[in-house]
């Protein structure tokens, strides 16, 4: 669901790149937040809470609230609302709290 026409804004996009989300391939624009690319692909649920398993989406979209934590290229607890999309990224729903390496 991208905005194609806007009365005031025009959107300059990076190049189209491929990434995977839970093993499935998607496309997005390089440099946009991972959450934006996922949302454009219709994916709103980014994870589930540890205790009650309730679905989580983003909330603030500017890196303040940590509602959007996912595992990216194996690294857990990445705020995908501010992490920029790159070619070939492996984005996964996070299971558990993640470990510090």
């Amino acid at each position, binding site marked *: *669901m*991208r*905005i194609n*026409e*806007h*009365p*005031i*804004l025009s*959107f300059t*996009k990076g190049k189209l790149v491929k990434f995977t989300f839970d093993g499935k391939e998607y496309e997005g624009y390089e440099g*946009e*937040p991972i959450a*934006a690319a996922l*949302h*454009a692909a219709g994916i*709103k*649920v*980014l994870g589930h809470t540890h205790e009650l398993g*309730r*679905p*989580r*989406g*983003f*909330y*603030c*979209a*500017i*890196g*303040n*609230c940590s509602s959007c934590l996912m595992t990216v290229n194996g690294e857990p607890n990445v705020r995908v*609302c*501010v992490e*920029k999309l790159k070619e070939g990224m492996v984005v996964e729903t996070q299971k558990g709290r993640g470990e510090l390496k």
Partner: protein
Amino acid sequence: MIKTDIAIVGGGPAGLCAAISAASQGANVTIIEKASNLGGQLIKQTHMFFGSQKQYASTRGIDIPDILMNELKKLGSLVNVMLDSTVLGLYEDGVLTVEQNNKYIKIKPDSIIIATGASEKFLAFPNNDLPGIYGAGAVQTLMNVHGIKPGNKVVMVGAGNIGLIVSYQLLQAGIEVKAIIDAAPKIGGYYVHASKVRRMGVPILTSHTVKYAHGKEVLKKVTIVKLDNNWQEVPGSEIDIDADVMCISVGLSPLAELLWQVGCDMIYVPELGGHVPVRNQELETSVKGVYVAGDVAGVEEASSAMVEGRLAGLCAAKNLGYAKENFEELKNDCIEQLYSLRSGPVGEKIRAGLSKVIV
């Protein structure tokens, strides 16, 4: 350890103006901004701003950062900008710790201006954590910065300026706004904004709140309910609205963690959005050499944030020994601008709040 005269945390309108005015007096400044670009909240404000000419009224918010950046450029090497850099800690010995691209950096400035802005408040109701329920600012970022529709049918909660403006911007992006609701009996925002969305057919329901959000994995439906004069639900007044997005726009609270860390005296002032630091006329907090400007000092507007930034920058520079002959004139001009921005009935709440924290 990086050294600089004045470290400015946050590159929004307040931080940018602080940098301009401090460097204009001759101080060396470092702006530390966690995002990849400067401008703070301005980068998503597609509407024309209010205020007076001095605060760029009738310029679109998105165009103001460029104007400020041009001013910054003229100051040359006195201004350093660190992007993608998050200030993590502010210690009692005045050291700032910063994360930049997974690197840990320490900065020792002589003074610090905190201009971190504010974050969106949340609202309590059953299922308020469902995906599809977003901060109004988040929806604005998604749509105006990244060009992505948040969904198709929106319920806006909050009829203050942000709720009204974001509703209008949703309509501009071709998204349906089913209703704007507000628990208060009166519309909080300016009537010009309210009548714009009303003319486009969006109902504004005052004395209404959210009773329930429906959906298993994502938001599907919102139940709203009417409130009586005592803010109690009126039984049988529930209305169901099909919606895949609910925007929460019930105010902001200052992002004051760093001020707490360094031990500033803080007071809870509801009129200013939450806990804010005690400060003097020069915007210096109870911790010597730590200044504040913008929404973190009290949630207001970009116009006042910019003037506060200029004032804090000027005074921080002067107190380090950098003052040009026009210092007093500039300082008085800032104080007058703030006074006029906060005059009249619109500024009543802010004036009441500030009277509790300015010493």
